[in-house]
């Protein structure tokens, strides 16, 4: 597999705007790291991803009862908002 790193696509997916110099440096770093981890992608295993438990102790999920608890007040919820109005968080338009 090629280590050609499409930095523009990846930074878009990750929602991080990058400067040109940053792009070059990061592409270079990431290519080095990817080359190192390449050893893994060449391995073959007799199991599939769906068989792997995500919990390292291979624990199963315990569900929680449907009982309401109060946590944050309205004021606490908005206390860190960069901008808010009429009890809502305000952001620049999300529809272009």
């Amino acid at each position, binding site marked *: 597999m090629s280590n050609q790193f499409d930095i523009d696509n990846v930074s878009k997916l990750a929602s991080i705007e990058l400067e040109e110099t940053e792009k070059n440096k990061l592409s270079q770093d990431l290519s080095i790291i990817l080359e190192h981890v390449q050893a893994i992608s060449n391995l073959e295993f007799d199991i599939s991803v769906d068989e792997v438990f995500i919990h390292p102790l291979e624990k199963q999920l315990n*569900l929680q009862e449907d009982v*309401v608890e109060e946590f944050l007040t309205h004021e606490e919820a908005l206390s860190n908002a960069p901008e808010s109005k009429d009890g809502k968080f*305000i952001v620049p338009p999300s529809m272009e």
Partner: protein
Amino acid sequence: MQYNPTIGIETHVELKTNSKMFCRCKVVDTEEPNVSLCPTCLGLPGALPVPNKKAIEFITLLALSTNCKITKQGMFHRKNYFYPDLPKNYQISQFDLPVGINGSLKIVLNDQEAEVAIERVHMEEDTGKSTHMGTGRIDSATSTALDFNRSGVPLVEIVTKPVLKTSLEAVAYIEELRQLVLDLGISEGKLEKGNLRFDANISVANSESDVLGTKVEIKNMNSLRSLERAIDYEIERQIKALNNGEIIAQETRHWDEGKEVTKPMRSKEGSADYRYFSDPDIPNMVLDEEFVNIIKSKMPKLPYQKRLELMQTGLSIGEANILSKSNDWIVKLFHDVYSTTKNSSSTYNWITGELQGQMRKVEINELPSWFKADSLSEIINLIESNKISFSSGKVILAALLVKNVTPYDVAKEQNLFQENDSEKILQIVKNVITENSEVVVRIKNGEDKLIGFLVGLIIKSSGGSINPSIAKDLLSKELEE
């Protein structure tokens, strides 16, 4: 050229739990913004999700009731995309191991039973709500306001295979699904509140081809009417485009309710690479046989089973379908009344027609506490046995809805019982003929409409209690002699 449309429907059903999917914040129905929040559903740093047991029970009920195969070893995945009303910028959802797969739902289409193949039933969380502010037009909004009360509310997504052919079939499917979630008690099922939200995938293909056409996804249909119109519009649009030699673009379109057209969406969501991966905050979910059996034991009667029972009384599938989608008390009333009248047709007509009509007139949604199924049975039986007239039945029913009386009392009090004794009626008929000899002559000279006048006199002279059809028969016989 002939084109065949193919439609698939994705429906989001909001579950009726007390608390949210991954935290214990109350599910609220309020205009007051940002009042039911915690670090988890607001996506604060350090917060973690813990799935709601009730929601998993609910989705398992839905999956079982649609004949899905239950995934024993399931898991939750993160679906990654950036959107301001998605607090974590990933949605906890399910990817390749959903709760249920490969099911089916029986629906009624054109008075026939049909089956819709279900591809998958999976669990996910809702997002917050965005309001675009500014000039009022989405295109020129100056800012977006966010309310996260809805963030984290449990949603089930139920996806059909691309098997539907018409907008009517899509509507019938949604109607059936809505009834199913109501009967299962897992959702409020209110379309106007967005408890059920649907997207349609539509393609058209040359009828001689085995290959499906290019799929177009239609969003933003919030009523059955807009679902029907949007599908019809989109099929038409695609056929027209193909006839003009155009290529259908694979895209997401938006139903414009006002203009009744579909328009391409310019949202960034379109071409996303969601980078699904198993959520490391949530261990694998095992739905073992024991759990599934407990859920099975809680399964209520399903809409198609209700239909079958109703059809066994002699109702048509159409009538049974309408009744099965009515409130529970109506179905129960039907069965109770039918058990004594044994007449499904008149029971059906009285319940769906007269009773519900009169209830609307007096503006009540529920039957008064004193109103018993036996009373309606009695009215129907009195009519069937000619003891009262059909219109007297209506009068009695109206009285029963406003005061605690029995049909017999009303009939007695208002003198609604009919005189069915031919001897007695004949005597009155003869009297009236004698007293109106001039009229009789005119009738014999061809003035048939005067017969009605004589019937009226006969009923009047009896004090209104004579069975009019008997009176009419006897009068005709007498006049012929």
